[in-house]
């Protein structure tokens, strides 16, 4: 699903170049559950946004389902974000003026899905996260955990194959954080590839793989006593 090959992301800051991501190589197979950990400023979010096709590597290759994202036109990357990738953010980023249902409809609105179908699929996605009774509430009438579940419904309503979650529990109390993670893991068991960026060792421990970032470099942590080499992982497509 995901192949990173010597990926760099460099920002010019004044005269100096800052390397947010340095020489990262990794593979994530379809259906995996991986955690991306590391201190703030280590480049986790930058890497996540590259994976989500919101950003492009400065150098190196990023293959998503075998296609090199850096070479794709903007319109193609928009299509990938629309159909293949779902995002969940720490601060939810629900539009305050729309109801829960309206927020879940949003990706379908831009994809040009008709009104009736939009309503139906959004309602279904809300049912999936257990919020069908909150469909007509606005975000400010929902609890933090409920807001994050609406955001998850929005992220999966287009049936993506990859879900990227940036600190999904970072702004939640322990119990609603647990609910949110349980929901994400359930979706992962149904086949959704899940990558969770987190500070929380407890959350990271729930993932099958833990990728640690430090100062832009990526290291795979050994898990459960069975050490695995860096950037290992099963991948469907071999190097072309």
């Amino acid at each position, binding site marked *: 699903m995901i192949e990173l090959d010597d990926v760099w992301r460099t920002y010019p800051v004044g005269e100096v170049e800052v390397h947010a991501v340095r020489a990262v190589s990794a593979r994530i197979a379809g259906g995996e559950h991986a955690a991306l950990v590391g201190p703030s400023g280590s480049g986790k979010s930058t890497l996540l946004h590259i994976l989500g096709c919101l950003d492009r590597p400065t150098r190196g290759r990023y293959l998503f389902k075998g296609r090199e994202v850096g070479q794709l036109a903007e319109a193609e990357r928009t299509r990938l974000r629309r159909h293949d990738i779902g995002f969940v953010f720490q601060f939810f980023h629900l539009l305050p003026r729309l109801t829960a249902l309206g927020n879940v409809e949003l*990706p379908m609105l*831009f994809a040009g899905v008709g009104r009736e179908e939009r309503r139906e699929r959004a309602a279904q996605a809300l049912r999936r996260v257990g919020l069908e009774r909150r469909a007509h509430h606005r975000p400010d009438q929902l609890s933090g955990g409920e807001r994050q579940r609406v955001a998850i419904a929005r992220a999966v309503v287009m049936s993506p194959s990859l879900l990227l979650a940036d600190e999904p529990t970072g702004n939640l109390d322990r119990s609603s954080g647990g609910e949110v993670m349980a929901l994400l893991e359930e979706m992962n068991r149904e086949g959704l590839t899940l990558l969770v960026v987190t500070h929380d060792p407890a959350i990271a421990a729930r993932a099958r793989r833990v990728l640690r970032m430090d100062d832009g470099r990526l290291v795979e942590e050994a898990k459960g006593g069975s050490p695995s080499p860096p950037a290992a992982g099963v991948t469907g497509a071999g190097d072309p």
Partner: protein
Amino acid sequence: MSLLEMVAFAAAALRGHRLRAALSVAGVAIGIASVVTLTALGEGARSYVVGEFAALGSNLVIVLPGKVETSGHAPFGGAERELTLDDYRAVAQRVPLVRRAAPLVVGSETVRWGERGRAVPVLGTTAEFAEVRRLRLAAGRFLSPGDPDQGGNEIVLGVKLARELFGHANPLGEAVRVGAWRFRVVGVLAPRGRSLGFDFDDLAFVPARTAMRMFNRASLFRILLDCHRHEDLERVKREVTTLLADRHRAEAVTVITQDAMITAFSSILRALTLALAGIASVSLVVAGVGIMNVMLVSVSERRAEVGLLKAVGASNGQVLTAFLVEAALLSTLGGLVGLGIGVALVRGLVEVFPEFPAVPPPWAMAAALVLAVVVGIAFGVWPARRATAMDPVAALARR
């Protein structure tokens, strides 16, 4: 995503900051209202002036001797062939579309009654003149009708001349002297003011033939015509020119219509109206800058939203359109409100001054509305482009 859905989306976004939206709508509304009101006033002034001119006799045709283009001196002396009473008779009788015609001879002489005298223009003409120029009389009657070659000793005085000579005495039937000639007063004109270069309150009318003898002239100063219908003016003009060219064996007369003057006035005032509209449009540009300001604030406030829209699969084009539609909604709403205010203002004005025919011209209303929408879109482009150019990554990481 259909345009309707885009409009609904943008409208919902505007509801998120009502006060700001309302203020920029108000800016556009003021601009449009001033365009509508000022053009209505300008057009009102135009139709008022044109109407007043028409009341003076817009079916008037003036024939003068000599071929003048633009210089003013030709009618005096320079003419190869002069207008005669026979020319006048020919025009009056042989051009069927002419309703009435009057010759005009002009001189200057002192009119005396007893000890008092006053030097005034003395105009020689016929009975028809009163009707051609729509003259009204304060007392008595105008010159009596009859053969223009007859002459006679009747005189009609302007109201000021009569007052200067007679004071409160009744001038009717009194004998006055004009130079060496004796006349009998048959009428006094009602106040009229200036028209065609003469002060009609301060002159005297005598029969044309008498005036020609008195001033030792063989020719006429002007022939004035009145035709039945306004639409016939051009034809009358052509026919008179042809007839006189035929009689003179050369095109030696100039025929002008008052229509030309009205047209000139009308176009001057229309230009004035456009200038007013232009000045008012400046306020629209200011309103456009207001919209741009609101949109810029809105874009920078909603960085995270732009990032989110991109993350859920909105293309750059869709993000751009969403913000442009917001700007266009603001300006269109402002335009409609402004039209309403402008029309109401003009209505109110007409209530207060019913004689002033101020009506907002439809072309101005349509142009103002189109201008409002264009201003909104034009001033929305830059903020919208900033929205699409923003780095969504940075925006999404923050609250």
